[in-house]
């Protein structure tokens, strides 16, 4: 490990940048913010090569005592699961700043500062190795996001902002309780790695799982806790939507993977049927919702519910294909959905409408824009050759080992995804534009090109060469699997040849233990 404090720099630099933005003079606000975000991106990139792909341990670990009397430490680290997520965040931030260049009309200074504070907190969440530190970052994300929606949002912004805040806060409170319980049960430590090694009684795991679930399921968002998402997206400014969809939603699935699975392996197993059912419902239900939307942002918001259903499905398969597919899908969803929201933002800047019916026939006046929209849509519907196919395919493969029927249902979501996205493309990109809006439809300019082209490149690079990401992920994911479901790890690495259909039957019945009947109830009523 090099002595350079990579992760601290990544967390602190944007924060310092936010202060610099407050101090900067009126004309250099945007440039300062952009420079900070780009600098953070450049600092994060070497991690990709410095990262030791053969190790599943935390790397670039930094440790300092913070509140020794409670054994709270400042500890950051990175493994194969958080590495791609951190990089995705640093890639997206400059794009978010660029897309807000002209679209933010009031309080530019605070806006840019909020974006940078957001970046600090998000990187902090992905790298924290101390539970208290994690919780601080976790809660710290809420405030800038609340302000982003509440100040720079659309007409109904206050409702959406408060809904977002209360929804997530309600979950977070239970998370805090769970953290405290773990502290006392796990040997008076907040060290995440140490807590991940401990063993806890079944009933404790059960309650802790529910508490974690409350926090993470709201963030993902899983059905039926998703209704804050469309509202938040519709009201949020473009950059807010991008951060929300691309990074914030990943916090939930990251939480499941980092905490629920390794700390509560027995409860995770026991809850698998519930999680699978909720995931599949989210996949299909979200897709149906997307079909019914006439507002572009709502359509993409519901498509996120559907796509995140794939992620939770993959996570709870406890095999390497499922979990790696889930992490891939987190990154891919960030790239693709981020791109879609950027596209919506661009058209909103021109026509001041997000209604599909108001934005039609864009290919003729805006050929480049249409090309980007089509590429992001194709990626979102999981076309092979694009990034999303990799993640979806791996999740489906992982799911197939567990249950063929679940896989078939999840596949239905892929058909529906093609339906709502292509129907949207058909209406928005093709056809003849309304002559009234025609003068407003100038094609994508250089600044906007710079915001979307990196994502387009990533879509194809990951789609065609996914292995470099996966090789960095293998050891870390194997570690989680070994922790959660030791027999599953064997299943994942050795498919029993020629006796194909026995394991799945065992696995379907195995988790249906005595806890199952209670869980279905709690899962359906567990709303604050």
């Amino acid at each position: 490990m090099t002595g350079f404090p990579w992760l601290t720099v990544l967390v602190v630099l944007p924060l310092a940048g936010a202060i610099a933005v407050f101090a900067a003079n009126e004309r250099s606000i945007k440039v300062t913010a952009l420079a900070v975000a780009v600098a953070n991106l450049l600092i994060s990139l070497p991690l990709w090569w410095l990262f030791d792909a053969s190790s599943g341990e935390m790397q670039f670990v930094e440790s300092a005592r913070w509140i020794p009397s409670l054994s709270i430490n400042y500890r950051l680290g990175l493994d194969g699961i958080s590495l791609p997520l951190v990089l995705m965040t640093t890639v997206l931030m400059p794009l978010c700043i660029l897309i807000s260049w002209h679209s933010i009309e009031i309080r530019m200074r605070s806006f840019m500062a909020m974006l940078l504070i957001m970046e600090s907190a998000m990187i902090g969440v992905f790298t924290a190795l101390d539970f208290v530190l994690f919780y601080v970052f976790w809660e710290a994300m809420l405030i800038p996001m609340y302000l982003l929606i509440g100040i720079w949002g659309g007409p109904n912004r206050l409702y959406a902002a408060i809904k977002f805040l209360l929804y997530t806060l309600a979950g977070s409170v239970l998370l805090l309780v769970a953290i405290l319980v773990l502290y006392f049960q796990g040997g008076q430590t907040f060290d995440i790695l140490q807590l991940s090694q401990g063993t806890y009684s079944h009933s404790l795991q059960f309650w802790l799982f529910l508490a974690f679930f409350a926090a993470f399921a709201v963030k993902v968002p899983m059905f039926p806790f998703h209704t804050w998402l469309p509202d938040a997206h519709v009201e949020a400014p473009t950059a807010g939507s991008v951060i929300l969809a691309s990074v914030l939603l990943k916090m939930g699935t990251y939480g499941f993977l980092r905490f629920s699975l390794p700390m509560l392996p027995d409860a995770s197993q026991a809850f698998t049927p519930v999680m699978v059912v909720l995931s599949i419902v989210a996949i299909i239900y979200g897709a149906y919702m997307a079909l019914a939307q006439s507002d572009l942002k709502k359509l993409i918001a519901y498509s996120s519910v559907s796509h995140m259903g794939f992620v939770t499905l993959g996570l709870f398969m406890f095999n390497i294909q499922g979990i790696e597919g889930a992490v891939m899908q987190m990154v891919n969803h960030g790239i693709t959905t981020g791109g879609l929201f950027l596209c919506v933002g661009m058209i909103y800047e021109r026509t001041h409408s997000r209604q599909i019916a108001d934005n039609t026939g864009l290919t003729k006046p805006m050929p480049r824009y249409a090309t980007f929209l089509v590429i992001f849509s194709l990626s979102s519907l999981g076309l092979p050759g694009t990034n999303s196919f990799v993640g979806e395919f791996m999740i489906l493969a992982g799911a197939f080992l567990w249950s063929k029927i679940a896989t078939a249902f999840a596949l239905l979501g892929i058909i529906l995804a093609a339906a709502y996205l292509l129907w949207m493309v058909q209406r928005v990109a093709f056809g003849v534009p309304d002559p009234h809006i025609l003068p407003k439809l100038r094609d994508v300019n250089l600044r906007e090109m710079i915001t979307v082209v990196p994502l387009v490149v990533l879509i194809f690079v990951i789609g065609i060469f996914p292995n470099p990401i996966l090789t960095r992920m293998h050891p870390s994911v194997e570690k989680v699997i070994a922790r959660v479901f030791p027999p599953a790890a064997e299943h994942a690495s050795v498919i029993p040849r020629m006796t194909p259909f026995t394991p799945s039957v065992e696995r379907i019945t195995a988790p249906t233990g005595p806890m199952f009947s209670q869980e279905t109830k709690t899962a359906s009523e567990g709303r604050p």
Partner: protein
Amino acid sequence: MIYALIPLLPLTAFLILGLAGRHINARAHLVAVPAVLLSLALSVGAFIEVASGSVISLPLYTWLTSGTLDIHIGLHIDRLTAVMLLLVTGVSSLVHVYTIGYMHGDPGYARFFGYIALFTFSMLMLVLADNLLQLFVFWEAVGLCSYLLIGHWYERASACAAATKAFLVNRVGDFGFMLGLLLVWYSFGSLNYLDIFPALHEATEVTMNLLGPFGGTWEVSVFTLIALLLFTGAVGKSAQVPLHVWLPDAMEGPTPISALIHAATMVTAGVFMVARLAPIYNLSPTAMSVVAITGAVTMVLGATIALTQTDIKRVVAYSTVSQLGYMIMACGLGAYASGMYHLLTHGAFKALLFLGCGSVIIALHHEQDMRHMGGLKDKLPITYWTFVVGSLALAGFPLTAGFFSKDDILVSAWSSGDLGRTLTLLGLLTALLTAFYSFRLVFVTFWGTSHVDPHHAEHLHEPSRTITTPLIILAVFSVLTGYLGIPSFLEPIFQTGGEPAVPHGSDGLMIMAAATAMGLIGMAAAYYVYVLNPDLPERLARQWGRLYRGSLNKWYVDEAYDCLFVRPTLAAASKLWKHVDVHVIDGTVNGIARAITWGGWLLRLVQSGQTQHYALAMAVGIVVLTAYLLL
């Protein structure tokens, strides 16, 4: 290694056109045509190498590894691939040349060339694949190209709708393909053909209980399941019943791509897939019967619809559906070589017919309705004569390529058991219908009196040489491919150590005679109806009104799907959103918020801040407490 260039050249052309198309525009063909011609030359080289008996394997790179999911991208060239390479690069080259004339002056000239280059790349990678996932990836990629090209004229609403429909219908098929693919991986731990095929015999006894999760018992052979699931994909891609509905609509695309994608190459991918996976299909008689019957139904259905269509491209499109049915039926009866043979000859003559249609369409300034044509044979002699050659081949006229290949299918079918015999009879019936509708097309379009718009009739002339040359070359191949010994070239691949090729003998001669007779009767009938008695069709249509309208409206399949799937799905989506999402779920959330606010308001009443209220409450409390303690 040089053979990796076969797909890479068109890919390079696509990348150049995609990135710099704006600057190249009218010179786009200078990039695309040489690339695909070079590919053709290399394919010929590969063909010669493979014909001498060798198999070329060319691993490229590792796509992804995750546990046992280990997928490599690679090229595999055996005899089956080699003939497909020739077909794809050959037809693609001709279509590229044809496009120079056909799309001249189109604002999307470079884009069009870019997409057909991308298509050529994808289709080549599809046939070159050495594993099922690569096949699937490029299976989707050709579907994407088809989508983009059908919607080439994106300002036309019907073209966009057709493009979306094509993609969606194929997605439905791919649902099964994906499950089949996962089942193969699950059962064999690999997706490589060369790993799967040798391992097949180990699993002949493996069955899967389909009703297991529901507590029932329905044991199905894993091969039947794999074969049928994968076949679902073929049903979509090769436009078989019940997923045939997208192909006729796909005619909204420019005619060169109808010839290349929707006749000669992409739509035959399903047939190719079944032939490629013959070792799997051979192990499941159930699946084979399903394949054969699906093919036969499609064959008859397509022909009956083609009888009455008035758009020339749609006639040819339904004829494609019908001919694909022949090929699939042949594969289902185990006659893979015959199916592939027909695939190749059909590739030549159907591409010819489509390009001929295009020549007519462009001469008439984008008129496609047969009723506004007629008497074109003197004005467009090259188009006419080549079109006649193509129609003769389609109708199975003796000594054309179509005659040999169709005959090969029927003879093989006849000698493959009871099901085969029944289906042979259907095949003969379809041969009659085929001959009838193809010559109806010839007579109505090229013979008789002219119904051409007088504006265009004056300066009606043969299109440019880039259009007519491909027609002539394809006309030659529509005859020549019958004499190249293709079935015997392909037969060795499908020999799995089972029984040898079917004995032909006198039955063979009888079928051949019957098929020839059917073709001639059909042609004669068309001559009688459309040349000798031009007012007969209308009378027939009136007399058989119900049948006529059924055929004209494609047996109302589209309408049925609209009622059964499309509208209910959209309605359900909208209802679910309004009632469940907005009312129930969000209603609950807002309800909780309101309940809390209301609770807060109630509690606030208590805290009035007035001392006498508190004193009263205290007094009441004391009374209640005392009462409780006393009682």
